[in-house]
């Protein structure tokens, strides 16, 4: 650990000890006790049904523990009774804001076991849709961030511009939120005519949106004072907890599965940058996401120009039986690393699917991270970690 990490770690430690001592002292002198505050399950800051049990001393958190499970749908069990095509529609609903991105690693894992590869055109379109769902997901985060910190306008701007992306996804796939468009061996259908031009126009709007959010929120001194130095995650801790995505990159780890994994996708055909930030605080996490949205629009723009002609479906049997074996594929989803570990027994459906969702790991750091912070910072930290309940509970 570097020097700054240690200092910040100490800060949290000291706050923790101080709050403990204050608690004890007050108990003796005034016969008061700390307060247990239940944040959630229904609370505006948890966007979903996460409950955080926080032990407070004044406004300082002595310890906090997230309690999840209010949205547990048992997807790992459900996949065991479904066939492969049926699973894609299920996993759509894990991270419902970036749903197309959830299908891709599952399909890739199944394709890996079947040893088929989607045709180049399908790979391109997949990548474009993947990035579009990232934009749809992260743009909402950028707006929601404002709401969590008390600015009401950004979220409406985010909803406004996300709508364009959702319309694109809908006109290509038929589903706004749950596309179910990915198939083993390719895609369900080709793009409708005129889609590429529309997408280009929307990407321009989205870049405008990013600038707007940067002016409205990121450049705002109040926003910066609320997020800078709050919830610092040092590099080592981030890795140990398995944080991924922007949360990990914000801690200075140069890690992006889009670049680092050799997947049959088209990312390596575009020119883009992986942003990292050395600070590891809430501001860094939010800022990385803003930059990533910009990069995504760039990726989409470049790939739109180079979609190869050809079929979008490889030759696969009509009734899909995946050969026996085990495969793991993970991709860099909007929330972080999302992977599927598929165990196949040569059946119509998988034998066991382990769904590694990003938010589960990302949120598991909160008991460590929330010690010693103030109540308003709980909201900041949760917002900047960015989780989606479906992605935690699966």
């Amino acid at each position, binding site marked *: 650990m570097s020097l700054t990490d240690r200092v910040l770690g100490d800060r949290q430690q000291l706050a923790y000890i101080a709050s403990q001592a204050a608690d004890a002292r007050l108990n003796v002198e005034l016969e008061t006790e700390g307060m247990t505050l239940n944040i959630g399950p229904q609370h505006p800051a948890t966007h979903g049904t996460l409950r955080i049990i926080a032990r407070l001393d004044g406004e300082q958190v002595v310890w906090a523990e997230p309690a999840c499970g209010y949205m547990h749908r048992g997807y790992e069990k459900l996949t065991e009774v*479904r*066939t492969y*095509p*049926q699973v*894609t*529609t*299920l996993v*759509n*609903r894990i991270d419902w804001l970036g749903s197309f991105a959830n299908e891709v690693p599952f399909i890739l894992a199944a394709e890996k076991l079947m040893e088929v590869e989607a045709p180049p*055109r399908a790979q391109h379109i997949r990548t474009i849709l993947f990035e579009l769902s990232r934009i749809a997901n992260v743009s909402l985060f950028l707006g929601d961030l404002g709401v969590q910190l008390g600015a009401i*306008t950004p979220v409406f*701007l985010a909803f*406004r511009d996300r*709508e364009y992306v959702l*319309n694109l996804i*809908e*006109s*290509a*796939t*038929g*589903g706004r939120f*749950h596309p*179910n468009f990915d198939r083993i061996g390719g895609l*369900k*259908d*080709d*793009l*409708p*005519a*005129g*889609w*590429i031009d529309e997408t280009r126009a929307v990407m321009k709007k989205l870049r405008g949106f990013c600038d*707007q959010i940067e*002016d*409205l*929120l*990121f*450049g*705002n*001194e*109040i*926003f*910066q004072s609320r997020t800078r130095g709050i919830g610092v995650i040092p590099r080592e801790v981030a890795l140990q907890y398995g944080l991924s995505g922007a949360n990990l990159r914000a801690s200075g780890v140069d890690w992006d599965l889009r670049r680092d994994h050799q997947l049959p996708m088209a990312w390596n055909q575009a020119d883009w940058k992986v942003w990292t930030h050395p600070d590891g605080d809430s501001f860094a996490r939010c800022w990385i996401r803003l930059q990533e949205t910009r990069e995504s629009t760039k990726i989409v723009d470049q790939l739109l120009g180079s*979609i*190869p*002609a*050809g*079929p*979008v*479906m490889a030759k696969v049997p009509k009734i899909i039986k995946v050969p026996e074996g085990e495969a793991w594929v993970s991709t860099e989803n909007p929330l972080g690393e999302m992977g599927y570990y598929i165990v196949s027994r040569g059946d119509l459906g998988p034998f066991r699917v382990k769904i590694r969702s990003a938010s589960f790991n990302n949120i598991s750091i909160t008991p460590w991270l929330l010690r010693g912070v103030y109540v308003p910072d709980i909201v900041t930290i949760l917002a900047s970690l960015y989780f989606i309940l479906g992605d935690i509970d699966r």
Partner: protein
Amino acid sequence: MPKVPGLVKGLGVTLGTLFNTATKGSNTVQYPHEKETPPIRSRGVIALHQDNCTSCMLCSRSCPDWCIYIEAHKELAPPRREGGKPRQVNLLDRFDIDYALCMYCGICVEVCPFDALFWSPEYEYSEPNIADLLHDKTKLSEWMETVPEAPALEAGADKKKK
């Protein structure tokens, strides 16, 4: 140029949006009065073309939610060619889709080998009573009118696909 403080820039963004909305109109649609047309591929509701259905049960079996209920009986139909044997056909007694369960994945439409199921972008069929979301074959057939033509494909698409 000196750096404009972020606080001022933020005010500029909101004021700019204010003027944009006032001059160019808002981004919202006043729903019951005006409506957006959903894209052609939009998965709104499933329409049933009864004549094409052979009650092969494929859709019902591939439905992940088990929300399609089919009952049929066999019947003799007049032969297709002159002098042929009378054909034995499956006649639909019941074809229900429970939209309270359906998750709009579209697998049934995809697996249907006889083009009996179609997606329609229609979306206004909410019901005050959840039981009414079970659409029977008459209701499903009525949706057929709203089924649009499949859209043209983007340049470079493989023309062989249906």
